[in-house]
């Protein structure tokens, strides 16, 4: 059974004027197996963060999950949970770490207090037992005993994110959702935190859904990669295969725009244009206005989900035809 399976997830917001809705997340299908690290990559505006929030039903109102979406954690239907079931899921089976560690900690509470709060939300513990366990968890993520009673403003960016991770581990999650956890940090700290996530995954057998816009960061650490564009998944596959032979023109373009140490002389090519406005997604394939390889059906017909051998899929007309034949 998958640690997380999402099918056709759509997130909708009401349009400001007039009738109807728009869908910044518009049909996301992905799965994370137990103990696996799945990276979700894509430009800003592709719907990565909203997808993460939707998984724990934390969308900011008036946003909501549209009918027809399905989210299952260890087989349990998240969309069918009542308020208490949802509360137990959050920080229990599923831990979550956010982008900006400076703003994600309550300035009035110490590092230890954050972890203790998460512990006591899920376990019946005395104050002393919770504190002892919080100290252990903080040590596990590399925050020393002397920092337990420090306030967020007294911690470095990396330490703050470690505290967040410790709090997310409090409920012994089977899945950790990390939404760009290192984007606000400098490069050396990024690498340390990723190493930490790798260790935790190995030691705890915990699955990780890692969201990033940084392909290079993901390349060496994730088992599989899912590429998102304009609210949809455009390609998914094992990391090495996907990087060696990207199937979707968007993935190719992303890789061409990423500098690489192995090919220092390669010219970095930016992708022309920007991510389209979610209030007016382009017809057909959403990438077609920026795509170098577009041809006849791309601007009118939405490509299907074409399989490309074992565990690989791409949503692009290059890999199939309108009759559905590969």
């Amino acid at each position, binding site marked *: 059974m998958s640690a997380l399976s999402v099918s056709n997830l759509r997130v909708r917001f009401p349009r400001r004027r007039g009738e109807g809705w728009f869908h910044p997340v518009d049909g996301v299908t992905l799965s994370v197996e137990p103990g696996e690290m799945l990276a979700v990559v894509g430009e800003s505006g592709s719907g990565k963060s909203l997808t993460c929030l939707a998984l724990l039903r*934390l969308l900011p109102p008036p946003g909501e999950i549209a009918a027809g979406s399905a989210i299952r954690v260890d087989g349990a239907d998240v969309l069918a949970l009542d308020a208490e079931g949802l509360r137990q899921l*959050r920080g229990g089976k599923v*831990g979550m770490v*956010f982008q900006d560690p400076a*703003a*994600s900690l*309550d300035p009035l509470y110490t590092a230890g207090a954050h972890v203790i709060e*998460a512990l006591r939300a899920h376990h019946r513990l005395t104050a002393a037992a919770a504190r002892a366990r919080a100290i252990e968890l903080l040590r596990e993520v590399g925050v020393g005993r002397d920092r337990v009673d420090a306030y967020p403003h007294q911690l470095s960016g990396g330490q703050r994110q470690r505290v967040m991770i410790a709090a997310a581990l409090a409920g012994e999650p089977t899945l950790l959702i990390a939404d760009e956890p290192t984007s606000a940090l400098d490069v050396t700290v990024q690498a340390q935190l990723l190493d930490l996530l790798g260790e935790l995954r190995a030691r705890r057998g915990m699955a990780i859904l890692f969201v990033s816009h940084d392909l290079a960061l993901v390349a060496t650490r994730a088992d599989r990669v899912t590429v998102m564009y304009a609210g949809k998944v455009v390609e998914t596959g094992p990391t090495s295969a996907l990087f060696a032979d990207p199937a979707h023109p968007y993935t190719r373009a992303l890789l061409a725009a990423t500098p690489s140490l192995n090919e220092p002389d390669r010219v970095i090519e930016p992708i022309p244009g920007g991510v389209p406005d979610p209030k007016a997604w382009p017809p057909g394939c959403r990438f077609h206005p920026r795509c170098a390889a577009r041809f006849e059906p791309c601007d009118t017909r939405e490509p299907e989900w074409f399989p490309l051998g074992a565990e690989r899929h791409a949503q692009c007309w290059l890999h199939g035809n309108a009759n559905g034949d590969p």
Partner: protein
Amino acid sequence: MRGGPLGRLLAAAWRAPGGRTGLLLLLGFGALATLAPPFLTDPATMSDVTAGAMAPSMAHPFGTDHLSRDVLSRVINGARISLVIALVAVAVSLVLGAGVGMVAGYVGGAVDAILMRLVDGARAIPRLFLLLLLILVWERIPLTALILVLGFTGWLGTSRLVRGEVLRLRHAPFILAARSLGASPYRVLRVHLLPNVAGPLIVAATLGLGEVILLEAGLSFLGLGVQPPTPSWGGMILEARPVLITAPWTSLFPGLAIACTVLAGNLVGDALQASLDPRTA
């Protein structure tokens, strides 16, 4: 970590010099009001009515008023009334204002709209006018009723203030993070939102303290507040009006008492606000 929330609050205020001055002043007034009266002359005693208002002397350190009652005794006995009224009324309005403001701000939507339109409506009526209407129901108003009336009319501004703060913080990343870790809505309100709006709330409380003392004085002047001969600071100043020029001590000392109390409240409030926020501590 020890001593409970109230102990920690007081300790926090004590660390700043201004807060210490304010606390000492408030404690001093409180101690005088509770302990001194047995040693003073009865505030109703008229030692020599024919003498009228007498200037401060050894027998009457603060002088006597136009009915030759001892001003010192009346100021200290008045402290009992005025402080109790102010503290309880402010506490009532804080609880109401914080409760309504937090619910309106956090729940939002129709609940927020209805609560805030009611508050707007009530705010359109001047507080003194509202108090007069309510107080006219009673021939002689009981003290408890006076306190409750002052408290129930004082929370409107506080609720708007708290709502604004909660709206600002509601979508803060740390609130989202707390929810993502399994904090219930009640816990988010009590543990994360309330302490984060405590600063503005405490400032509102200290300002409210002064406002209530002055309102009570105004009501007493109109014969609708604390009833004579029970001494209250406001009542004393206003009773002293006819002899303001000839016997200034009759209004000076209760005036100083009001000023010192309001100042002390503000000092404590400032110190708390500065030290509750660990970023400035």
